[in-house]
Every structure is written in structure tokens, then in C-alpha cells.
């Protein structure tokens, strides 16, 4: 069996406690603890399910786990130069449906999109400001909101942020919170091409 990722509830709880202590917000801390206890219980169940699915067979496993976000995100994307967009900030919110993506443009205008509105632009090939805003946001944590999954491999690219500080903020705060409140599912290696060709393809 390869690469089955399981929760590390104790560590994540400690991270949140420290994070909340640093911010000196008791009420938030209490609600976070309660929220986390619920996740912890759920995590134990998921852990058991995942383990039972894969136990006893270490050969030929082609699955890995990934996470589903249970929190939302407000991403702000700024137009830093004409037609050049970067992520300015990413702030977690409790509910996925409260997620927003906010575009701030050089002409001074601000455009706020809901998750549903953003998804309309997700796969479009148009080059409108809105579409570019969504695509830029998708290079960071907003990606998880659009895909509905965390994805074990997706790492926000530093080049997508206005500066390194904005990137580090994401890594330290919003990113870790989103990950700690995520549930899990499975993902499969492609297997494409297996046995389909007997020779090379050079032309």
C-alpha cells in the first residue's frame, strides 16, 4: 500500500490552540475547539474507513487520499499592472458558501464574486477581467473552493502572490486552517498507456 495520508488530529489541535492564543481571542478559541472536536470525531471515523479499505494488501495499490474543504475562503486578487493579476490576501471563513473572490482593479473598481459566480469563469476560455481574476485566485487556495477538494498535491505557487509576505501568510494561516478542517477521499493514478503501445513514438 502506498501513501495513504491520515489525519494528525493532536498536532493540528495544538496548532490551532497556539494560533488562537497568539491572536488572544478567547471566544474564537472556544468555538474552534468545539469545531475541532467534531472534526476529530469525524477524522477518527474516516481514519478507520481508510485503514480498513487498504489493510491487508500492500501490492499494486494505486490510490492516495485527499481532503475536502469544510471551510470557506475570501480571496482578494489585485491587478498589479495592466492585465497582470496577483493574489493579495486569503482569509478563511466558517462556511464554504460564504466564500468570495474579490477583484481590485487598476481603475479603482472592485468586483466581488460568489463561489457560484466564480465557477462560471473557472473553465471558460474568455479573457475578461473576471475570468482572469478567478484564474489567478485558482493558483492559490481559492483553487480548493472551485474544485471542492483540497488535493494532496496542490501547493499554491509563490509567483501567484503580490509578494512573498502574502504567500507566507497563506502558508501559515489560511492554508493550515483549511487543511486541518478537511475531510478525505481517494484519488487514483491514471494507469493510462499501460499495455497500449509496444514501441516508441519518435517520428
Amino acid at each position, binding site marked *: 500500500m*502506498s501513501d495513504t495520508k491520515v489525519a494528525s488530529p493532536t498536532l493540528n489541535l495544538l496548532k490551532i490552540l497556539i494560533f488562537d492564543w497568539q491572536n488572544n481571542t478567547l471566544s474564537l478559541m472556544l468555538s474552534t475547539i468545539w469545531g475541532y472536536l467534531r472534526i476529530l470525531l469525524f477524522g477518527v471515523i474516516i481514519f478507520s474507513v481508510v485503514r480498513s479499505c487498504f489493510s491487508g494488501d500492500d501490492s499494486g495499490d494505486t490510490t*492516495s487520499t485527499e481532503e475536502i474543504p469544510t471551510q470557506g475562503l475570501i480571496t482578494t486578487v489585485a491587478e498589479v499592472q495592466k492585465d497582470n493579476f496577483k493574489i493579495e490576501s486569503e482569509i478563511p471563513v466558517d462556511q464554504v458558501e460564504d466564500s468570495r473572490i474579490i477583484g481590485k482593479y487598476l481603475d479603482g473598481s472592485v468586483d466581488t464574486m460568489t463561489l457560484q459566480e466564480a465557477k462560471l469563469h473557472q473553465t471558460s476560455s474568455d479573457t475578461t477581467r473576471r475570468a482572469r481574476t478567478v484564474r489567478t485566485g485558482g493558483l492559490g487556495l481559492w483553487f480548493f473552493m472551485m474544485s471542492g477538494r483540497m*488535493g494532496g498535491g496542490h501547493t499554491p505557487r509563490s509567483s501567484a502572490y503580490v509578494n512573498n509576505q502574502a504567500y507566507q501568510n497563506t502558508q501559515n494561516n489560511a492554508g493550515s486552517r483549511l487543511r486541518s478542517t478537511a475531510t478525505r477521499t481517494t484519488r487514483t493514478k491514471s494507469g*493510462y498507456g499501460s499495455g*497500449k503501445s509496444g514501441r516508441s513514438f519518435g517520428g
Partner: protein
Amino acid sequence: MDNRLISAPKLPKKFIKKYGFQYFTSGENHDYLAEDLLGVYASEEDAFLSAGNTAFSLLRKAAQAVIESPDLLSRFGIPAASHELLRWSIENEWDDYLVGRFDFAGGFDGQPVKLLEFNADTCSLLVETTFLQPEILKEAKQRGIKNDLLESLTGRLRAISSEQNILLTDLGFAEDQLTASVIGRAARQAGWEDVGTKALEEVIFDPDDAVLVEMGGGQAKAYDNLYKAFPWDFILFEEPELWELLTELITSRRVKVLNPAWSLLLQCKGILAVAWQQNPNHPLLLDTAWSAAGLRSRQYVSKPIWGRMGENVSLFHSPNYPTAQTEGDFADSPMIYQQLAHFTTDQEEYRYQGSVFYTDHSCAIAVRRQDDLIMDDDAEFISCYRLA
């Protein structure tokens, strides 16, 4: 032709071993590198390079006509479900071409250069051109001909993507892996530190996420750029589900695949018939049609539109009965018919085929030769030196 051939030195064993190039010098390929070197004049070099630039322009114009024509898309055998990606690719990654190789007849001893075909998607000869030929010429103490392939690939990668990572994926064949390694080398030369390699079946294509590779310990890595050492037509016809996944990943800009999907249209030999129809009597093109009856010439070859390596090609000196034929895996493919080209030959009846690598311009020349009427996988690679 014979007076410009000189004896080729053997590649040093140390060099072959150091870079793992035994594939090109041992086993079935022990005689792949020709025992001669071919001298090329500057005027011939210029003519080949110019032909590459012109041919790229002609074929791209033809591709734009194909994507707008249901009839041509049908002739190419491209299913409707795949048109979306091709259109998107033309509209959004028209300038993201990495590399292809034109094969030409003629070009030596005053003979006109004629386009045989374009290996637009996953061309071979990258290792031979970037590494073997320069080393052979160094051993021979000869000056080389135009060869900026590696530098040009590096430049293309820099221009195509600002994300400095790439995954090279293949189906496990040594030649493809060696070819991909040249792209990897160009990427490192471009300053990209994250160059991964993975067999296709091990790669994770998550349409909602990215192209991913497991790293162990429950971690996976996302790649922004993917070089595939297998052609788009393989994906289209053999792995249509992968085509769908890539459509989602590419159009949502989660990954750039090289070459871009539109290169499929130029890889199809049907493009030669379209180009001829758009540019009848163009000096670079050979009369090409969808049937032998559509040709003015009674001497022609038939080629499968998705064929490779000279397989399933028939050569007719007069209609109906082939003078020469090759076997292969593409017998069921639709055919195009192309006026018989004139190859320069030497006294031993070797036919010489000049090739031009195209990135965003013609950047290198390579030559192969074979003592058969049809050039196929048995061709030799002959390194070229510059004649004064």
C-alpha cells in the same frame, strides 16, 4: 554527392557511457550512426532553414482552415468531442509551440527542397542533433552546420511558461525517454530546477486539481508544465478518457502540455493535402491529394495520415501496382497521396533526407540516409560538416 562524404570517427566509448547513449550505438542500432560525414554548403544550409520557416507558416495556415471545416476534421478522423480542446489550443496557445521537425527531399546538388512531412508533435533525432552530432564533429575536427537546437529549446521553455517546473512523461521506451531528457536538459539550462520524470501510468490527472506525481509519505507534487513523449493522436485514439481530462486541465489553465494540442493538426499528414490546395504549385510543396486520381503526377506515394517511421508507405512509379511498400501498424489509417519526390542519392544508392528542427524558427539541420526507396526506421543518421 560522393565527393562530399568523408570518413566519420567513432564516438568515444567514454562519451557514450557517460551520457548513457548506448541505445544509439549498440544492439539493433549498432550501425545507426553512419560511417561517413556529409559536407553541406552554406547555400544549402540557408535553403533548408528558409524552407523550414516557410513550411511552418504554410502548415499553420492550413491548420486554421482545418479547425473551421467540419469536412476536413472528419477527413482527419478527429471526433467532435475533441474539437473543443483543439479550438481552445489554437485560440490560447498558438504561440506556445516547442519543437517539431520537417523532413525534406532534395536540397543538395542544386535540387529544390520539397516538403515531405512535418513531425509536429513528438519528433525524434533530438539527442542525435544536440549531443551526438556535435561530439562526432568535434572528434572529426570539423566545423558544424546550423545547430542551435538546445539553446532554442531553452528559449522556448522560458517564453512559454513562467512556472519553472516540468514533468516529462513517457510510455517506458528508451528512445522516448532519451528524447525527453533533451527537453529536461533544456529546462535545467533555462534555470528550471524542478524537472520530474514519470511513466504515464503513474501520473495522476485530476481535472479539479492538477497533474500530480506522488512523492511518498502521502504527499504529491503538482506540475505546471508537462512534456509528453507520446503524440496527441495516441491520446485521441487510444486513451480518449485522458483526452477529456487533459481538456479540463488545459482549458482551466492548470497545466500546459507541450507540444500544444493544436500540433495534432500539423502532425496529421492530411495537412499536406490542405496546404497544397491552399497553395497550388508552391515551390516548397509536393502535389498532395486524398486520392491518387486527385494528383497530376502518375508517380506518387501513399502514406497513412497518422503513420510514423515510414510504415505502410507504398511507392508507385505507375498507378495501381506499387514498386515498393513497407509494412506497419497503420494499414487501417486513411491515406494521402503525394507526388513522388526526388531524393539526392550517392553511388551506393543511399537517399539523403534533410530535416529541419523548428521551434519558433528554423534552428537546426539533421540528415538521414537509407539505401531503400522508402525511408523508414532503418535509416542512418549522418552528421554534417560545413563545406567552405
